[in-house]
Structure formats: C-alpha cells, structure tokens
C-alpha cells in the first residue's frame, strides 16, 4: 500500500473543508465554520497518515527513502504544509474566512497530484543524484517556503477583494494588470493543463474574461450585500501584517531552500551554483520577494501594492515549481 488511496481521500476532505469555510463565510453561519475547522484538522491527519504510510511502504519495498523525491510526493507535502500553516494561523488570528481562500489551494494541489495524467503515484527508487541527506532538508525548506507564499497569495487576494476599490488608483498597474494576468494564465494553461501553446493561449482568453466579468459583477453588487460578505474579513492592517509575516516566513525558508540546494549541488556535482533553470528561477523568485520586502520596509509600500507584488511572486513560485520542467536542466526528477 502506497498511501495514495488515503491521499485521494484527503483531497476530498480538504475540498469539503473549503466548502464549509466558504459556506460559513457567505451565509454567515459560525457553526459551519467550526465544522470546517474540524474537517480541515481531519484532512491534515489523513494527509499525515498518507505520507507516513508511503514512507513505511518505501522501506517495505526495500527502497526506503523519505517521501520527498518526485513531483507527486512534493505536491502531497506542499498540501500538508499549507494545511498546517493555515491551522496555525486560524488558531492565532481566530478568523475562519482565511480558510475559504487557503484550504482550496491544498485541495487543488492534491487533486492535481492525483488527477494529472503522467504524474505517477508509485513509490520509485532513488536515482544516484538524489541519494543524499540534503534531499530531506532541501525539499522541506523549499516547500515550507512555497506553502507560505501560497497562503500569502490567498491572503493578498482577500485584501484586494476587500480594499482594492477604496485605495488610490495606480494607473500603470491598471494597464499592466490585465496583460500580466493574461500572460500568466496562458503560461499556466500550457504548463498545467494542455500540451501545446496555441491551445493554451486560446483557453487563457475566456478565463481572463470570466475573471473580469466576476470582478465587474462584484463591483456592481448592492452595497449592503457586499458589506454582508466583506465585514467579517479581518481588518486592513491585520491582512497586511499577515501577508507580510507569511512572506517573511516564506523568504526565510526559500533562502534556506536555495542554500541547502547549493550545498547539496556542491557535494554532488562539485559546484554550488550552476545557473540551471530551476536554480535560476528560484533566484528570480527570491529577487521578487526581496524587492517586496525592501519596498515595504524602506519605501513604505503597503496594502494594494504589496498584495499585487505578493501575487506576482507566487506566480514566479509556480513557474519555478512547474514551468521549469518545460526548460532543459538538471532538476528533471521533478518533471511530469
């Protein structure tokens, strides 16, 4: 037993938790929120069990290794960290609406791992380059970082939903926004969904339109109805501070992830940095979040700008994670 059955169940449990969080938020039912929390905790337990069974299973097969060695296992761990960090935030900040924006990410990560054809859930033996104790340190630090950025993405989108209307207009952003959105959507359609560029570029167009239609509808919503939806959101500075803390956590772990990767590369290939596409992309992500931190600390950027930068940074994270497999390089063990 490879634990993949349990992990499929965890997918549905996270989905259910997300559903209850959203239900509790929209219909203002605190009881449903409490149920959602228990479901999320259950999902986390099942996810943990799945990982442990997989770990034990690999030893039973005689190819024992920690379950962090391929795309499937990394996605499972990614979902696990998202759930863990979210549950900690819920306990610390006591706001369940954040769950409506984060547990679905955990569900999507697991669903993608199980459903995308070509991602094998078999336990595979380690190839020579991966046989190192640095593997565990590298994968754990990277994915704690990625998961923090994923939750920061969720919180930033909450910020934009609630406050993007009331803040000052930033004109260059209004022009660049749809373009960036389109490019990123096209890229991710290509990376995650379809096998060729033409199709991806075409699919991205209606998604873009749907997104803007939803935004337009939301803007037109009657004010009291809108308030009913948004008044339970954490207040502005809490969302801003939460985003910042998550990014800071992510940045620390991303740095540690890049560093453990470099130390590992030095012990495996005799060089700590080789500008391989995955290395380069992780550095690009690091640059983006470093920009964000400097803009906030020194230049006093807050709110909307930081929320946009945080979402942009997460797009870079996703590309580092999935997109790089389209490019040639040494990190091919993560490939689909």
């Amino acid at each position: 037993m490879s634990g993949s059955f349990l992990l499929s169940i965890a997918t549905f449990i996270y989905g259910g938790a997300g559903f209850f969080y959203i239900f509790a938020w929209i219909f203002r039912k605190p009881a449903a929120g409490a149920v959602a929390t228990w479901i999320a905790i259950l999902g986390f337990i099942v996810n943990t069990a799945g990982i442990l069974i997989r770990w034990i299973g690999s030893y039973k097969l005689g190819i024992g290794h920690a379950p962090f060695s391929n795309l499937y296992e990394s996605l499972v761990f990614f979902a696990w960290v998202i759930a863990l960090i979210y549950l900690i935030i819920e306990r610390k900040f006591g706001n369940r609406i954040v769950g409506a924006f984060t547990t679905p990410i955990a569900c999507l990560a697991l669903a993608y791992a199980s459903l995308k054809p070509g991602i094998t859930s078999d336990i595979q033996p380690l190839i020579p380059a991966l046989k190192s104790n640095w593997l565990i340190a590298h994968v754990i630090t990277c994915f704690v970082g990625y998961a923090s950025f994923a939750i920061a993405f969720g919180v930033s989108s909450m910020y934009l939903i609630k406050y993007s209307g009331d803040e000052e207009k930033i004109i260059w952003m209004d022009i660049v926004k749809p373009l960036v959105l389109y490019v990123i959507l096209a890229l991710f359609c290509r990376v995650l969904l379809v096998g060729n560029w033409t199709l991806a570029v075409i699919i991205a167009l209606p998604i873009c339109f749907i997104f803007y239609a939803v935004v337009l509808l939301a803007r037109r919503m009657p004010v009291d109805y809108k308030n009913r939806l948004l008044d339970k959101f954490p207040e502005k500075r809490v969302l801003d501070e939460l985003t910042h803390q998550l990014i800071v956590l992510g940045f620390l772990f991303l740095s540690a992830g890049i560093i453990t990767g470099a130390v590992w590369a030095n012990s495996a290939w005799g060089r700590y940095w080789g500008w391989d596409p995955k290395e380069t992309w992780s550095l690009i992500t690091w640059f983006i979040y470093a920009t964000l931190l400097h803009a906030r600390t020194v230049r006093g950027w807050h709110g909307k700008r930081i929320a946009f930068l945080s979402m942009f940074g997460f797009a870079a994270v996703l590309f580092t994670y999935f997109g790089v497999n389209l490019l040639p390089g040494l990190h091919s063990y993560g490939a689909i």
Partner: protein
Amino acid sequence: MSDREISADPFAKIWKFFASVRLTIGLLLTLAATSIIGTLIPQNESPEAYLRTFGPFLSRLFDVLGLFDMYHCWWFQSLMLLLATNVLICSIERLSSTWPVIFVKNPSFNVERFRRLKPKEEFSDSRNAGALKDSYPSIIARSFRYWRVEEIDNNGFAVYGEKGRWTRLGVYIVHLSVILMLVGGVIGSIFGFEGFVNIAEGDSAQQIRLRNSGEMRTLDFAIRCDDFDVSFYETGAPKEFRSRLTILEHDKPVLSKDIIVNDPLHYKGISIFQSSYGQLAPQDQALTPQGEVTLSFTSKATGMIYEKKAAIGRQIELPENLGKFVLKEFISAYNFKGNDLGGAFVGILYQTDGAQVEVVLPIRFPSFDRMGPMFNQYRKDNVFISVSDLVADPTPATVRYFTGLQVTRDPGVLVVYAGFILMIVGCYITFFMSHQQICVEVVEKGKRSRIMVSGTSNKNKLGNERKVKKIAHTLATGDQRS
C-alpha cells in the same frame, strides 16, 4: 545651502546614487527579468547548435549580446557588481546612523514619547506608588533584559524596559552575507578551476580538461581508476555509479576511496566527483594501444597530404596555416541525417579565422569530409581530413567502462558557506526578532495610582500590541498566564 554644495560634488553624487533603495529595487527587478533569458536560451552550446536553432542573424545577434553565456557576460556581471556596491553603500550609510543608537551605553527614554504611542493601556490600582515601585520593576525585568526606574515629579515613577536593541544589526548581517557569497564566487572563479577527465578502468590520468577554456591542466598528482561499477534497479533506473579511485603521488598510491554521486573524494584542496560514465570498447579498438589514430590532412591549395597521429583531446598543429585540430570523441554509430554511418571520430577544427567547426570522420567513408564545407558555412574549403590507417570499424564486443570525473578546486567555497550561514542567521534576526521598548508610568492620585503602559517595536506591530496588553494585564492582576 549645504545641500547644493554636496550635490555638486561628483563623489557625493555617486555616493548618493548608490545609497538609494530605488536603485536596489530597480536592480533586483532587472536581475529577475534578465535572468529569465538564460533559462529560455540553452547556455554554452556549440555554435553549430545555435546556428541550427536560431539561424544566422539571430545567433549572431545573441552572440554579440552575450546571451549564450549570459550569466558570465559583461553586462550581467556588471549588474551583479552594481547590486553588490549598492548593498555595501546602503549598509554603510544606514549603519553609520544606527550604530550610535545600537551601541548606546545608557539608552535614554522620554516618557512624553511613550504617552503618545498607540498601543497604550491604562488602569488604576488601589496600591500607592511606593508599593508598586517594589513589584513592577521585577515584572518588567522578567521579559526585558535592560530596565531602569526613573522618578518623575509628584510622587510618580516610570519603569522603562527594552530588549533586542542589537537585533537592528540583523539586516546588515544579511547584506554582509550577500557580499560574502559574491566575493566567494569571485575567489572561486579566479583561484579555482572546474574540469573533467575520463579515465578507463585500470588507467590513470594526471591531466584534466578545463570546462570553460577547454585547455588541459596538469594536477600535482595522478588519479587511477581501479574499478567502475554501475548498478540498476529492476525498473531499469540507475541505482548507483561507483568508482574506486586511487591517488598516486610519484606513482606511489597514497589514498584509495570509492566515490559515488554525493560522496566525492577530497585531496589537497581538490575535489573529485562521480559525474558520468561510458563504455570504451569500440573506441579502444579503433585506436592503437597507445590510444592513437593516424589522420591525414589534405591541403586544397597545395595538394599536399600530411599524416598526423591524433589522440582524443590532444591538439595538433596543422601546417600551411590551416589551424589546429583536436579529436573530441569516438561515436560507435554516427547518425547522419537518419543514416547510420557506423563508427566515426568527431573532432574540432580551429580555423585561423577564429571559427571552430565540427568535423566528422566516419571510418568507413574516408572521403566524407570532402563535403564538410557544404554543411557548415563557417568551414573554410581549404583542407579535408580523413582517417588514414586501416582500422576495422569496431562493433561493441567486450565492455570496458571509463568513469567520468568532475575535478574541481574552489577556494571560495568556505567564504560562500560563511555567507550561507550568515544569511540564515541574519534573516532570522531581521524577521523574527525585534527591538522592543516598554514604558510603565505610575502616577499617584490620592491613595490610588494611575498606571499607563505603552510600548513600541521596530517590527511586528501586532505582536507588540499583544505584548503591551499582556504586560498591562500582568501588572494589573499579578497573573502571568494570559
């Protein structure tokens, strides 16, 4: 007044330019954007491969812009240098103003300032100020390392506490770590080298080929490959590559070790890594026992035929100003436009016009290279090359392995690793520790006391609020739990 004078001074202008965080943000985003290019264009491939992919115009353009080795080209390195200078000057600029604040002996504090602060809790206590003066300082001392009590007029006092003043240094530790990493990288590229060598089982080698320049470098010692083994899983995936190596000093073995991927051999500051492997048999049979093959070079201008002995990796000088030739490898089934030409040597001709062209010499087709200039526009039509002695086209018979070793020396690694450690430590200090100050002011009002608690922190404002609330709660109730 003096502002104008300062900005007129060119040195001050340059300093000001580098001390700006706008520059940092600009550089970080530029580096992020330009780094993408090198992940889209494969780096350091052969000119032929680029010509095939991009065509003559684009490949020329990309070459001029340095995009085929962009992370080492002048403009990218200049950006990195700018960033390093920016980080350094920003740090010096800011540190010079925070230094006196960080290393102050007796931090002064101003009750007036704390009265105006936002997270502020107020309550009254039935005890008088004298009684509170006995108990409050010890409560503050529990969570603040530095504290002191000051009298204020009309029977009041203030307890001031602070901790983590030094954590303001965290960000400079991070900046120092970035500079250390870059310096380590520069040390490595100046004093280090990165090379590779293929050694057949039983053979030894003292010369390695450098990866960047392609030149040979002689080591102070020889490496002997006693044995090479590769094992596979049932799935067919490789399980382990293992080379048994012996270091020879003046032909005497001094050290033996099995190396596998992730477990290299270190000797005299040089590290030897398991990098690749291959089978030697066909090439061995195509070569003489000395590892040589005779090639003939026919000059088109004079019609002269020059016979030269060639070995893999050895450079041959050609007469009549025809350039240099290096035999690169032997391919047992050379694929030419879908046809298997059998065993073929592949070499590189360094023409006198600076172009490097690939030359293919199939054993079975001695006149194949006559067509060379037709397939490659950079190839001058002045010489044609063939394998001249009658070697049998070998078929893989006995399997003999060679091990491919990466041989590196990088004295910068320790500096870079020091940078790594400082980066993690510095990030932790910068992000998760803060300089916290608190002030408890007690004013006697009749028999009771009026108490104000307020605090400030240089980061994590929400955490600071919680802390002020918690301290106020502890002071008011004597209860430390919440």
